[in-house]
């Protein structure tokens, strides 16, 4: 680990958190529960998201514990089904989908574009309440017996063959879906209509572009899963017959409608993380992102192409061979913009002044792990190999590499990167670097063996497996323990830093971006004066000029 660092903190003897900021503006629980301030709503989300993450993580722990032995001895197979289902439902709908957008997106987008708040503050608050309602309903479902269909609710299992709480879980997801829709709607409107003077589209931080693309997906795709849940509910209660072969229905119709959302959902999950990576990689290479336009357009391209590939989740389910062909081809296309981003980030590093603070460590982890995950996606998009790999642990490993190795690392990178801005305090660097390394090691131990297990033929969603797979499963569980430590550490030291962390000052990373040109924590209205954007994004020369102006006594603006 390099001892070089770009961190520049104010003199700790004299520095203090600014007395007037969004946290101190008003007091009392109602000022939080009825807030319109996007920053407070982001904090509300951060706390609730962390809570749901650990519940989902506990369920993951149970899964890995069960899989230590080939027999289904820790829990009954039905219970195991419920555990992995709730793990999926909670992690996807109540953690990954809202993770970066609802916390970092909510907090930063208005600041990054030079606005005082999002366009629709009340809708923003409503989003959080819907999220909580859905989340609490999901927890209630767990308490009364859970659901065992898998997070994919495949018909006709979910409509005709199980006695578990499909309806309540479906309702929870339905409600959470509207939370997501409103967040996306808010972002699109804000980014179009509330940019400060001079903030043209191509001066926006790439974080904003990424969220714009993800928001399009949120708005257009989520309603389709909503209607698919309604149809399941009616099929289960009244027996309308849309998915029932005995009445002439087609179970595959559900899958079409479900995956029409759930594939774009994975891009909803990853795009904001990619936005974080762009910001972090630029700051810790002291260099503008290579190929800004390409990265910006590739975000939108991922969103657009991502709409047309959903049936690659259905290759073995009974769609026509011609549909398989078309969707396979389109899946190849959607890989291209993601690869463009990886190339551009790599070229950003080239000849940059790289330092290895925690956000950058997570970013390096992202780049390696997401690349592996993405490449394995190509094997799955090829229908021939997919026939053998689908419904095995290869799929499980693939999506955990992109979602956990990719998205979750990006989320942690972002939390660490913007922690000083959000709280005014620095986290402790050494332990956080350790946590990042522990997470990386734990992750690889957990999920790499699962690729091998998948190619060897171990099916997913099974509590018991042939004994020859045990050793790889034990490796995986051991890794999961390490991974758990890696995720627990940030909770501990981040909370510690709230009281004891060093005072961060406005811009400890010397980053470009409007959010870094104001105090930490920010004022409720973000800026004292409306900022005028007169330079390109990632303009480190402009930043140097600003520093020089400050040092020569010229008071800076904002």
């Amino acid at each position, binding site marked *: 680990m390099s001892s070089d660092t770009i961190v520049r903190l104010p003199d700790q003897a004299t520095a203090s958190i600014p007395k007037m900021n969004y946290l101190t503006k008003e007091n009392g629980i109602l000022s939080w529960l009825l807030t319109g301030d996007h920053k407070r709503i982001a904090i509300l989300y951060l706390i609730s998201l962390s809570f749901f993450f650990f519940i989902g993580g506990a369920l993951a722990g149970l899964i890995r514990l069960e899989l230590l032995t080939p027999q289904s001895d820790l829990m009954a197979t039905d219970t195991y089904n419920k555990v992995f289902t709730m793990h999926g439902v909670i992690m996807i709908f109540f953690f990954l989908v809202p993770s970066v957008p609802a916390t970092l997106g909510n907090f930063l987008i208005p600041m990054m574009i030079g*606005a*005082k*708040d*999002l*366009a*629709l*503050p009340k*809708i923003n608050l409503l989003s959080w309440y819907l999220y909580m309602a859905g989340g609490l309903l999901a927890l209630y479902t767990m308490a009364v017996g859970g659901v065992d269909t898998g997070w994919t609710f495949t018909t006709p299992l979910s409509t005709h063959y199980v006695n578990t709480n499909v309806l309540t879980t479906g309702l929870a997801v339905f409600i959470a879906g509207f939370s997501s*829709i409103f967040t996306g*709607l*808010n972002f*699109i*409107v804000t980014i*179009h*209509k*509330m940019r400060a003077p001079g903030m043209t589209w191509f001066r926006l931080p790439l974080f904003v572009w990424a969220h714009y693309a993800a928001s399009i997906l949120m*708005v*257009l*795709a*989520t*309603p*389709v899963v*909503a*209607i*698919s849940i309604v*149809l399941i509910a*009616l099929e289960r*209660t*009244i*027996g*309308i*017959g*849309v998915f029932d072969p005995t*009445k*002439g*229905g*087609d179970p595959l*119709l559900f899958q*079409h*409608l479900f995956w*029409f959302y759930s594939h774009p959902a994975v891009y909803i999950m990853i795009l904001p993380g990619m936005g974080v990576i762009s910001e972090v990689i630029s700051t810790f290479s002291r260099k503008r992102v290579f190929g800004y336009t390409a990265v910006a357009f590739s975000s939108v391209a991922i969103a657009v192409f991502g709409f047309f590939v959903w049936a690659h989740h259905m290759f073995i389910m009974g769609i026509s061979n011609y549909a398989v062909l078309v969707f396979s081809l389109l899946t190849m296309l959607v890989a291209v913009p993601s690869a463009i981003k990886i190339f551009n980030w790599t070229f950003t590093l080239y000849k940059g002044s790289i330092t290895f603070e925690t956000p950058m460590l997570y970013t390096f982890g992202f780049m390696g792990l997401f690349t592996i995950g993405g490449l394995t996606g190509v094997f799955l998009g090829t229908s021939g190999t997919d026939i053998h790999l689908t419904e095995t642990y290869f799929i499980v490993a693939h999506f955990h590499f992109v979602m956990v190795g990719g998205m979750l690392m990006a989320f942690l990178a972002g939390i660490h990167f913007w922690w000083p801005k959000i709280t005014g305090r620095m986290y402790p660097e050494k332990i956080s670097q350790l946590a990042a390394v522990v997470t990386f090691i734990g992750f690889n131990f957990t999920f790499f063996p699962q690729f091998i297990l998948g190619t060897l033929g171990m099916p997913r969603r099974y509590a018991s497996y042939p004994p020859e797979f045990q050793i790889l499963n034990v490796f995986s569980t051991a890794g999961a323990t390490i991974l758990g430590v890696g995720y627990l550490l940030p909770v501990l030291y981040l909370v510690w830093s709230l009281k004891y962390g060093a005072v961060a000052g406005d811009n400890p990373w010397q980053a470009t971006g409007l959010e870094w040109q104001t105090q930490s924590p920010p004022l409720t*209205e973000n800026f*004292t*004066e*409306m900022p005028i954007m007169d330079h390109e994004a990632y303009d480190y020369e402009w930043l140097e000029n600003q520093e020089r102006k400050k040092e020569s006594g010229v008071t800076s603006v904002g």
Partner: protein
Amino acid sequence: MSDNTAHDARPPYLRHHFNSVEQQADTSTFAMWLFLLTEVMFFGGLFTAYLIYRNWYYPAFVAASHQLNVVWGATNTLVLIFSSFTMAMGVWCAETRRRKGLVLCLSLTFILGLGFLGIKTIEYREKIEKHHVPGFHYSMQSFLDPQSDPEVYAEYQDKPLQPDMAVHTEVYFSLYFLMTGMHALHMIIGIGILGFMILRARAGAYTSGHVTFVENFGLYWHFVDIIWIYLFALLYLISRHA
């Protein structure tokens, strides 16, 4: 500071995070359009299901659609078209500050909306009486033996369906109730908001320069009308020739 002098000119309905009334109005209209997009995709799933099953079970769909009264359906279509007209006129009244005109237009829209729901109730009641509600003692009798239903038989002289095709009429009615029910739900919500708006309009809330609420509601109302235009064509008018 840049907004101190403008503070006196900031109307009370201008929220603090917007710089101008124009920005606020623009933004809220854009937001309403995006919301309508989500509604399009929501109904999209239902239209997909409908098109698939109509293609698979065409004879059943034809026979079942004859159970819908085209007079009621067409009347409802006209009712909604007129209500869209009165709603658009309402927006014009708000924009030109005609308070009484606005109240009249909104009230007419309200009444027409209720009229639509009234006709829908009549239609639904008929379906219930004839046991054509899926999941509630659904009966295929009218399709296995069309002559047992003299009213409809007199008009269309349908041939009896084979039992394995007659079974699929239940899918038709599922989609009928789903799609018109979802539409009716949106109508009910709209009528509720209309009631609120009429009260506010009487107090002059929308005729003093702040028309966005009326405009945006108008967008919602027209959208619900458009959904019905398609529902009418798809559900009622499959094929009514002998």
